[in-house]
């Protein structure tokens, strides 16, 4: 059973084709990580799946339904999307921001019901930010702030959460904190998690399912054992990677890599090296 399927999906900015005829599936109840070089269309793909961008061609199915037959509100009840480095309005408290996650479920003037309050409380507790409920978001550290955004997505009460580089600008320990939080949410609440990650090793460590993209096309997808190979990383990133098994975690890890010389960067040629 898949949470998301895309069928022949093409996305373009004006005339520039970023994603070409992509068929991708996101398995339900799993963690999927999307990897690929800068400008390969990862974020663009995530936005099209979240209906933030209108695709040029092709269809996105959410639980088997064409998302363009669903209203924005219906989608928001099924799928939460966290863009890369979101910004909170200054002066907003953590509790108020997390409460915004209930928006797709509210009607009229939007007084919070008992049920809304419970789920907000739960989201604050599970992300360990209850003690900051009345703190202004601007005053938190990067790692805490990222947990606040995840709490907001959790308050949305969706089975599916999409995150665009949730660990950017975070220190090593905060990166792990955020990813472990997502891991636990997947294991305990059975949430389907899709995230774009820059760090290959973290992507391999936390993924059940990996998707490697270059120039808007899927090069490989499947479990990390299938995707984290020197051959595929060479094709995707144009690097000569040395892959070993992590002695502690047992996952595949790239411990060293070199640029492959004397080979034109194919992606720069095809995509024009556009940073998306």
């Amino acid at each position, binding site marked *: 059973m898949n949470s998301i399927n895309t069928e022949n999906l093409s996305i373009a900015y004006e005339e520039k084709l970023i994603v070409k005829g992509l068929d991708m599936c996101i398995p339900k109840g799993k963690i999927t990580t999307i990897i690929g070089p800068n400008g390969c269309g990862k974020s663009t793909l995530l936005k099209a799946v979240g209906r933030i961008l209108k695709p040029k061609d092709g269809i996105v199915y959410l639980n088997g339904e064409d998302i363009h037959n669903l209203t*924005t509100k219906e989608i928001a009840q099924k799928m939460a*999307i966290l863009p890369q480095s979101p*910004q*909170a309005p200054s002066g*907003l408290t953590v509790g*108020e921001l997390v409460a915004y996650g209930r928006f797709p479920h509210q009607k009229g003037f939007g007084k919070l019901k008992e049920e809304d309050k419970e789920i907000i409380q739960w989201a604050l507790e599970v992300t360990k930010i209850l003690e900051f409920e009345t703190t202004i978001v601007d005053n938190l550290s990067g790692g805490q702030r990222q947990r606040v955004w995840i709490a907001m997505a959790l308050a949305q009460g969706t089975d599916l959460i999409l995150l665009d580089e949730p660990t950017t600008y975070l220190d090593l320990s905060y990166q792990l904190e955020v990813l472990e939080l997502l891991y636990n949410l997947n294991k305990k609440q059975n949430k389907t998690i899709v995230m774009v990650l820059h760090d290959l090793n973290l992507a391999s460590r936390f993924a059940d399912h990996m998707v490697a993209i270059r120039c808007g096309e899927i090069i490989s997808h499947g479990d990390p054992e299938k995707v984290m190979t020197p051959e595929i990383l060479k094709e995707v990133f144009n690097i000569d990677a040395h892959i070993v098994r992590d002695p502690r975690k047992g996952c595949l890890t790239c411990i060293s890599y070199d640029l492959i010389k004397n080979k034109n960067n194919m992606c720069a040629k095809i995509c024009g090296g556009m940073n998306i």
Partner: protein
Amino acid sequence: MENIKQKNEAHKNKVAKRNITILITCLILLILSFVISMNTGYTKLSPNDTLKTLFGGGSHKEKLILFKFRLPRIVVSILVGIGLSLSGCIIQGISRNPLADPGLLGINAGAGLMVILYVMFFGAKSFLSVFTLPFLALIGAGITAILIYILSYKKGEGVAPLRLILTGIAIQAGISALTTLLVIKLDDTQFDFVANWQAGSIWASNWNFVMTLLPWILILVPYIMMKSRVLDILNLGDELAYSLGTEVERERQLLLGAAVALAASSVSVSGSIGFVGLIAPHLARRLVGPKHRILLPTCALIGAVLVSISDTIAKIIVQPLEIPTGIVVAIVGAPYFLYLLSRNTQ
């Protein structure tokens, strides 16, 4: 755990109480400025006489002064304050830009150009002007706003707030240049009239103007209050707003439309009082935070207080002459605004 919850609840109650206190304080200030304004003007009326006249007593002259001249002017200044400050609050919220104000949507420039064109063709003393001018200013403001919207619209992406602001600045500069060019050709009386209008004098002080402005306020203010949650969500940026289930482009069109209508109808009776739309939302946000359910009413009250106090000062400061209210708003507002900014950068 329970301890933390209790602490959080206590804190939330404290904030709610403080917000209500702020609202009530603003309301009291508004009533005070209303009373003071009723007592001030060219003819002195004691508070006692004013009260007596308001409740049905008083001489014919007193009645005339209060009901025919002062009361409508106060009501207009309060309504203008509400309209401009809410308009600014919406525009700042949608564009996520704290420096945005209704002027950026070309409202002042468009209305000003129409006023000049009218004065050029029909003269400043035309008996029709009292009624036609607000209407024309409204049309000028509306056309400019629509033009800016169309020019900043991009297929597939809609109207990005930053592009809207940049287009607004460009169009505004163009119209201002045209306006300056036309002003040179005016004769003295025409020039005085236009200069006065541009400085923002609440010259339109009779009940007809209250009646042209009031319907807009009565319809749009409740509508905007209803949309306060949508404004909160739009404030998070387009992507999150989509993710939370908002039809971003459509909501933005509706809210921008409301902001334009509010500002244009206000400017059409008051001349260009730009600063209120910038400063009132700032003050309100500082006092009660960015949640629109409390921010909007606070902002409206602050705007009303600001314009009505400024109008009172405008009436008394250089008696028997009057200086335009817009100038007083800027003189009173600018130093305070600078003070706030300097405190903010610590």
